[in-house]
């Protein structure tokens, strides 16, 4: 709910992001990775659950997600071919933005109820976001058609996850959904905190690199110049050598 609201407020930002074809390609390829990864996670859930009905539903859901991944990948590749944008080689997923999968959970350790609650919320959030994307790519009919198709599937995913959650936990499914919401919020906070810490770490290490490293770099380069290419003869092994990490 919260993220949907934020997404609505950020609609102009989304419009700006999707306007540029380079960014559009990167987004599509990123979604391809996320959908495929999510599909594999849900497949794992299908392999683990003891509930036959859930196995069938998870499998159908996983097939959808894998198909969505293919759709995004093909569209991204098509756009790449036609526009020859700079994001071509090595373009990889940026961040797992839409969060379809169960990548925050250890699937084998979680009961079906928890997975369903988490999936339901993920699908709902993704549907809200994809609806916005569908609207902001009106100038690009093939991409819009992909979002249309995916949104149709999302309805099925949202419905079955909620129905099955209510079937498995008739008395506590609302509580489970709230717990999943809080867990998602906590995970989002952790992701944000990690990203901030990562940025700080990078800045501090870069500063250290230019302040502390130069003399050692000079020594290392001097040593490298003395090294001869080719074979290096190895001394005989010592019996106690397995104790050393160095």
């Amino acid at each position, binding site marked *: 709910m919260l993220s949907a609201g934020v997404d609505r407020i950020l609609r102009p930002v989304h419009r700006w992001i999707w306007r540029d074809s380079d960014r559009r390609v990167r987004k599509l*390829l990123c979604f391809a990775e996320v959908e495929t990864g999510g599909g594999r996670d849900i497949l794992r859930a299908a392999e683990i659950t003891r509930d036959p009905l859930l196995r069938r539903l998870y*499998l159908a859901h996983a097939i959808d997600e894998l198909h969505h991944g293919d759709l995004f990948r093909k569209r991204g590749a098509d756009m790449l071919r036609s526009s020859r944008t700079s994001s*071509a080689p*090595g373009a990889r997923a940026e961040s797992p933005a839409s969060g379809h999968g169960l990548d925050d959970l250890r699937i084998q350790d979680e009961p079906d109820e928890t997975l369903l609650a988490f999936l339901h919320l993920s699908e709902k959030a993704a549907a809200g976001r994809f609806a916005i994307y569908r609207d902001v790519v009106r100038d690009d009919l093939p991409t819009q058609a992909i979002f249309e198709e995916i949104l149709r599937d999302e309805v099925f995913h949202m419905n079955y996850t909620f129905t099955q959650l209510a079937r498995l936990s008739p008395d506590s499914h609302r509580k489970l959904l709230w717990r999943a919401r809080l867990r998602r919020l906590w995970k989002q906070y952790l992701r944000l905190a990690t990203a901030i810490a990562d940025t700080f770490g990078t800045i501090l*290490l870069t500063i250290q*690199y230019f302040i502390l490293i130069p003399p050692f*770099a000079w020594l290392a380069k001097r040593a490298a110049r003395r090294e001869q290419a*080719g074979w290096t003869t*190895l001394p005989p092994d010592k019996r106690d050598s397995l104790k050393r*990490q160095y």
Partner: protein
Amino acid sequence: MKILGISAHYHDSAAALVCDGMPVCAVQEERLSRRKNDAAFPIGAIEWCLDHAGLSPDDLDAVVFYERSMLKFERILTCVLRGFPRSWRSFPQAMKNSLGEKLWVRGVIESHLGIPKNRVLFTAHHQAHAATAFLTAPTRRAAIITADGVGEWATLTVGHGERTDRKTAITLMREIRFPHSLGMLYSTFTAYLGFAVNEGEYKVMGLAAYGQPTQVDLVRRLIRRTPDGAFALDMAYFEYHTSAKRSYSSRFVDLFGPPRNPYEPIDLNTTEGRRHADCAASVQAVLEETLVDIARELHRETGLPDLCLGGGVALNGVANARILSESGFERVFVPSAPGDAGCALGAALYADRVYFGQQERNVPDHPFWGPSVDSNELLRAATEDGQDLEQLDDAALIERTADELFAGAVVGWMEGACEFGPRALGHRSILAAPHSSQTRDRINRDIKYREEFRPFAPVVPIEAADRYFELPPGGARLARFMSAVFRVRPEWRTRLASITHVDGSARVQVLEREMAPRLSALLEAYGRRSGIPVLLNTSFNVAGEPIVCSALEGYSTFRRCGIDMLVAAPVVVTKRGHSRVKSLKEQALA
């Protein structure tokens, strides 16, 4: 003694358990976590190994890690220093990457397993490769070559090993050190050709068959031979030693042209597609000639008839076949898991035989060390889903499967313990008739979802191998774990179209009955129907996923791709005729 070997943190982590000198089990983490090339600390694999053997961590006499993490860190730091100031972007990344879990392996193992620090041991990376190759091979004395991207500092080592009843010795005589690396050279071309490094190298090998080595002279500018018989790379063409972002430099691009867009399919009918194939053929040719030269020199030096090959480069079947034919060695042994995953087993065996000096024992000569398939799981799931299933005795199952294969069905085949290593060698395989190129196209399109240019491998009984394939002396042995590429005899190529690569070769698996009796019986039964006891054998997975391990993973793969029949003896599940034309989603919901 009970010794656990671990490989982790780079790619394809694994655990292996050796008890009283014999391997008990070994499994890659990816098979359990279902994340391809999972590099995480293999806690799932460790837990499975201990459970399988009925041990607790306290029962372990030693836990051996497959490389010296501090020495590796020294190499990373030194390379950053040498690359100053160009390495300013990679420095923070390298430090964050190393200073987390990777540098503190002893503590990580101690905290996960709760064992005292003094029970945690470390082999050198290439020592572990050498041990995997030598101590699992049926030979008493052999020369050893290990080659991969990089371990701590070494990228290629040569040496020899000797096993007597009283003592085992593995002596690595000399090494080539980072950044000069055959593995990195090949991986750089893998990245340049738009494939994922550490995963797409075999695609380069497959693509090479479509090209001509017209750019060999250009590749030789990148790699020069040194007077002592080794090689050195011209680092002006590379960036992997200073950058984590790109492995080739602008100069490399000036020399070979623009890199391939990974999202664009390779079209071999275009000039660009042919250029990529020629590029692959050229680096393949240079790799082969360098390895053959080094092997030939080692043969002259040691005078030994046997060679054990280890390291990721030993997965290059075309190069392995040339080494066998041209280096002078009579027999070449490549383990089923020559890459980093195999180091878990090698490290444990090295500690047992060399460090603790335990008595030599012959290691069983098969690759099946992983979790076993439970057909009851399949029976339960297929029954609950209302699938067409049968339970057959062994003879009926073989005949039924052979009938289906002969009728053109594609069969998912699971039996026993899963393979340790990247190849499906008959326990987690997709099998099909090898006669028509349409079968190959169908499996690529509907089942594996992979590139058209990639070939499929055949499996053939050892008694019939020579009839269909041009095997040199020692070839059958090298093909035991699908470690070499040999030529299909010209007269059989049209009748073995789905497994014959464009250059007339095939990465054949030569099967001895004792290794996989049921598959062997199936080959015989199929031979009685078709006149040719050869089957297409490809790994039981779809693109981007690890090979299936459990029956349910096989079942879910079966249900969402074009496999017609799934076998986990004694259970056989068949897709109904009408469901074969239904969409995958409809089938799943049916």
